[in-house]
């Protein structure tokens, strides 16, 4: 044991004993350190030496391809990542800004109006209740935007209170006053306020300060916003409301409450006297689910998206949204992490088509070509070439790097993805009722679109349409093809898909001709699918009723129309028959498909991990002495042995029993592999480990017993 530790333990305990958490420094590390702490003035130098590795020549990413990747390409990956993510992030930010725009406008208007009608009613404070939904994380963003907006448009201070920084009334008032008065003035002006009162200094939680400030500034309203109202102590809010309403004849208070649950639950908690002095208006915020959907359309299904996620990853993201978090922030974080992983860990990510980045593939390393040849999509590409007996090309691709480079450059266009997305937007526009674009995306990128429910529903619905409906339906499709979809960043693609467009237009003109004819004759036209094909016929012969089926008679127009609909259906079916993105050559470059990093980072299971480590240490240690089976073994670490014994106990544990069992196990019965004192040390340290993990605690119920506090598997 080093001198350092002796110094500390002379009083019988470490100074760390009373801290709930501290950094553990192993004793050998301590021994290597100089006994004296380093002098303070040296720190400045140390810092500069620390900063040196951060200079621009070093690379943020590691070298891939077995370390043979040149720095140029590493740099390029990083650049691409920065560019791609900043593009996506700006899109996310604009969507978020848009989303809260309505609420912000409403609230601002409310505050302006309330400051005008203030003196109509006495002693009631105008208050806005902003129903944000149960996702607390998004409240922060909303209230930041809100305060920025209010400060810009309302003449008067706006203060945002969070439950965390509001332990008691005095602290809240101090904060309100400080935030309110510091917003427009700097420190010198602050002094002026107190001196303006005849030299008398006011307590810093006295609302008189605020009053003076408001009078001096001529403020329109003083906005106090409670960001997470539920988390505040109810008595604190009640006190504040009473205080504010008492002052409301002098200070024009406006309160804003962010409510995560519902107004009724909030009102139930407030005492009558507090709710009496509030005069409220309710505001609703766009719910997270619709927001995520909008972001999804733009960022994953958008035409300019640099990277797309595979359906399975999207499925797990969406599942987590629904079951746990429901927050835009976690969605964004997961997205960002996917980008990071893609560009960090995939050497071929240099080929990712990022908007605005010029692809220059001139100096690809031989390793890059090697990596391309390892791709599953390359293999399937080769396979299909072999099947078409294009063997020369196969050999060229496998052996000649320059030919592979040509092939790469040819395949790098965004075209195949665009085709998928366009089909997707056509489907979403032609579906009879709106569907979640996330489901549609998953079907599209799974390659199961042609057999999916969506296509079936479209085809089913076209069969039953009247000619007028059909015309407008086709018009919608034409509209999408010509103008594109702004939600998904798609421009019109009429030039590239002239054939389809022409066909659709010809269908449309035929249908409208039929419709015109029908309106002239006054007989409605329907396809044979829309009419029940067989009618039931009742005849009475000799006082007996006979039922017989007979085919409904179709007019000439009906028949024409039916064949038109059939043709259209065939064409649409053909159009919707798109391949899976997994079949496209080089799809790995723009389709990120790896679940493991996401799972590990975003859904940690700390408790399950600790329990597994203790009950099956072999899984982590991989040592030779243990077997891979669960259960007790004397070769396990002491804590693991004790934990497994602990699992078998009931809620009160006799320490002596535990010790004897432990000693039996460690010493191996009669063999006496270990001294009793050594075993005791192990036992104590193991017990301390369990205690620090919160698994046992001393019990008052019985002497010499420990209380068991955790159960495995919860």
């Amino acid at each position, binding site marked *: 044991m080093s001198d350092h530790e002796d110094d500390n333990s002379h009083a019988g305990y470490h100074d760390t004993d009373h801290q709930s958490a501290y950094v553990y420094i192993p004793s050998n590390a301590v021994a290597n350190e100089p006994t004296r702490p380093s002098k303070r003035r040296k720190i400045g130098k140390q810092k500069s030496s620390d900063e040196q590795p951060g200079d621009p020549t070093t690379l943020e990413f590691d070298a891939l391809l077995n370390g043979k990747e040149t720095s140029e390409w590493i740099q390029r990956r990083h650049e691409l990542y920065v560019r791609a993510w900043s593009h996506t992030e700006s899109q996310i930010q604009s969507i978020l800004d848009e989303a809260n725009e309505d609420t912000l406008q409403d609230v601002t208007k409310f505050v302006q109006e309330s400051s005008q009608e203030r003196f109509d009613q006495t002693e009631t404070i105008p*208050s806005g*209740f902003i129903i944000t*939904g*149960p996702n*607390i994380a998004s409240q922060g963003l909303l209230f930041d935007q809100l305060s920025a907006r209010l400060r810009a448009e309302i003449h008067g201070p706006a203060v945002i209170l969070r*439950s965390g920084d509001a*332990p008691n*009334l*005095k602290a809240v008032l101090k904060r309100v006053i400080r935030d309110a008065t510091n917003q427009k003035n700097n420190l010198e002006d602050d002094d002026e306020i107190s001196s303006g*009162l*005849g*030299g*008398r200094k*006011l*307590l810093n*939680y*006295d*609302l*008189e300060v605020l009053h003076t400030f408001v009078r001096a500034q001529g403020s329109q309203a003083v906005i106090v916003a409670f960001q997470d109202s*539920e*988390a505040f102590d109810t008595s604190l809010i009640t*006190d504040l409301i009473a*205080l504010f309403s*008492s*002052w409301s004849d002098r200070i024009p208070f406006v309160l804003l409450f962010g409510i995560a*649950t*519902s*107004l*009724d*639950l909030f*009102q139930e*908690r*407030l005492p*009558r006297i507090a*709710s*009496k002095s*509030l*005069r*409220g208006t*309710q505001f609703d915020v766009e*719910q997270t689910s619709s927001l995520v959907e909008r972001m999804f359309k733009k960022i994953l299904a958008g035409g300019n998206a640099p990277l797309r996620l595979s359906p399975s990853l999207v499925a797990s993201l969406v*599942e987590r*949204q*629904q*079951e*746990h*978090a429901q927050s835009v922030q976690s969605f964004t974080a997961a997205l960002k992490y996917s980008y990071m992983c893609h560009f960090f860990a995939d050497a071929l990510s240099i080929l990712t088509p990022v908007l605005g980045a010029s692809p220059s593939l001139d100096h690809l390393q031989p390793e890059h070509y090697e990596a391309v040849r390892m791709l599953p999509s390359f293999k399937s590409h080769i396979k299909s070439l072999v099947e078409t007996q294009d063997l020369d090309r196969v050999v060229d691709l496998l052996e000649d790097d320059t030919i592979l480079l040509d092939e790469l450059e040819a395949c790098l266009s965004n075209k195949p993805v665009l085709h998928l997305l366009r089909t997707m937007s056509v489907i979403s526009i032609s579906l009879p009722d709106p569907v979640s674009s996330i489901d549609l995306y998953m079907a599209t990128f799974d390659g199961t679109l042609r057999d999916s429910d969506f296509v079936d529903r479209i085809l089913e619905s076209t069969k039953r349409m009247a000619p007028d409906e059909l015309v407008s339906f086709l018009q919608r499709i034409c509209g999408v093809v010509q103008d594109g979809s702004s939600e998904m960043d798609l421009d019109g693609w009429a030039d590239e898909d002239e054939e389809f467009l022409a066909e659709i237009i010809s269908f449309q003109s035929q249908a409208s001709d039929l419709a015109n004819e029908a309106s002239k004759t006054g007989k409605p036209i329907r396809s044979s699918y829309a009419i029940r094909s067989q009618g039931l016929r009742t005849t009475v012969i000799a006082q007996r009723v006979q039922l017989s089926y007979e085919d409904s008679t179709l007019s000439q127009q009906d028949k024409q129309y039916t064949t038109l609909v059939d043709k259209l259906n065939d064409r649409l079916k053909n159009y919707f028959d798109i391949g899976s993105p997994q079949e496209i050559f080089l799809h790995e470059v723009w389709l990120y498909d790896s679940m493991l990093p996401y799972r590990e980072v975003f*859904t940690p*299971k*700390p*408790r*399950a991990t600790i*329990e597994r480590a203790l009950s099956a240490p072999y899984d982590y240690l991989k040592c030779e002495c243990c077997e891979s089976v669960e259960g007790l073994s004397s070769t396990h670490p002491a804590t693991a042995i004790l934990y497994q014994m602990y699992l078998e106990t009931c809620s009160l544990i006799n320490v002596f029993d535990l010790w004897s069992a432990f000693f039996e196990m460690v010493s191996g019965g009669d063999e006496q592999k270990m001294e009793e004192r050594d075993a005791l040390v192990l036992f104590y340290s193991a017990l301390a480990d369990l205690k620090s993990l*919160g698994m046992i*605690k001393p019990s008052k119920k019985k002497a010499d017993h420990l209380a068991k*506090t*955790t*159960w495995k*598997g*919860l």
Partner: protein
Amino acid sequence: MAVLFSLPNEVMLNALCAQFPCRDQQIRSLATLLSVRAAPCRNLVLHGLAATGKSSIAKTVLEYLSKRQTNGYANGSTQHDDDELRYAVIKSAECIGGRHLFEQTISTVSKVIGRSENVGRCENLAQLAVELSKLVENWTASEQDSRQRLVLVFDGIDRQRDAPPTLLPALARLVEIVPNLTTIFIVTSPRPNFLHLPGVPHLEFPAYTKPELLQILALTEPSPVLPQGTKETKDVWTRYSSAIWDSLSKHSGRDILSFRSVCLRLWPRFIRPILDGTLNPSPFSRLMVANRSLFQNDSILVPALVSNPQSTALVPQSQSQSNLQGIAIQLPHISRLLLVASYLASYNPPRTDSTFFMKAALAKRRKKGGGTALSRKPGTAKSRKIARKLLGPQAFVLERMLAIFLAIEEDAGKRKGKAALNGSADVLMAVTTLASLRLLVRMGGPNQDVLDVGTKYKIAIGWEVIRGVARSVGVEVEDYLAD
């Protein structure tokens, strides 16, 4: 030579009584007890329920008295001009803590007296007494030959936050140290001898009776006037307010303010038939019958946070129901299940857990119709049992709730093939979120270690809500609830 004793000015009193009807006696007593030349007392306690006019009458009387009284005595002696009464009102509702009250007192007094410079800090009662007597002595010394009086009004002093224990007796004894001082305490209901001083005059402001209330309310002008004219309006208003009193306000919200606000809120709906032209104001009983739903619906008495006068009474139940449904839909799936589990943990006694949540017991319970292990023969219970639901939620440890959660999660059974939830950080995060939404209440104060396994929680929502939440995740709470 000045008159030693004179009653307060009658003109002033009449004006006051007109301003505050039904408070003649209180106004007269107050004026007598405060005016400099009548019978100024040293301490005075005004007490009465909320909204009986204590503060506003005291303030108005003082305002009248503090005016230089020249008009009334123009033909009499002129020495009264030298009488000077000044007053300072300190609202306890605006003072946080005792020290704030003292500071507030000193600064108001110095403002009133007009000597705002060089007043020191005032941190406790002793300093208050010293500073106050200094101020008053300075003030009285400047004008020697007149009678001067300072009135301190402590409004709502019984509701003072963080008051030092000796606050009231000490304030009452200020008058012994400071000359020419009157202290008025405005309280709701004084405890006997709460000033520890005998012989302090008490002035009661009783709650208004029905005729008084109606008389006062008759002065209010209802906002949409009837097309028939002001006289009809007044007539209908009087009868209408009487009817409102008998049906609604008599039983709840008896004070003038809530009575008036209820009357004003219901008035537009009450006269809607007249405005529509379907009914005439003259047979009042017909109006009553047409509007009887107004008088039967007492939800108007509950102050609504969001005021929309159209829908408050017409849609009494359904809206609140849908709002409560709202959180059931908004919360994520796992959070809802956690809420249900917390409810079960709060309302089930721990010893029944094995019956309800263990797999081995499941088949047995279903077969025998539930709760067999608990049912006893009648008469064997030692004490009368109160239904658990009525006793309110009990605290539970997190560990137990998680066990119940996993059990019902398996039963809800919608997660085929999804990742297991055991020990996941997401679940614990959901628990924390619920706690900060106060749907779960963490017991043991703010200093409780959150990471301690022994930390106890309690559910904070009731049966009606939880049933909706449980159904939304496919769990029937009754199946798991003991008795």
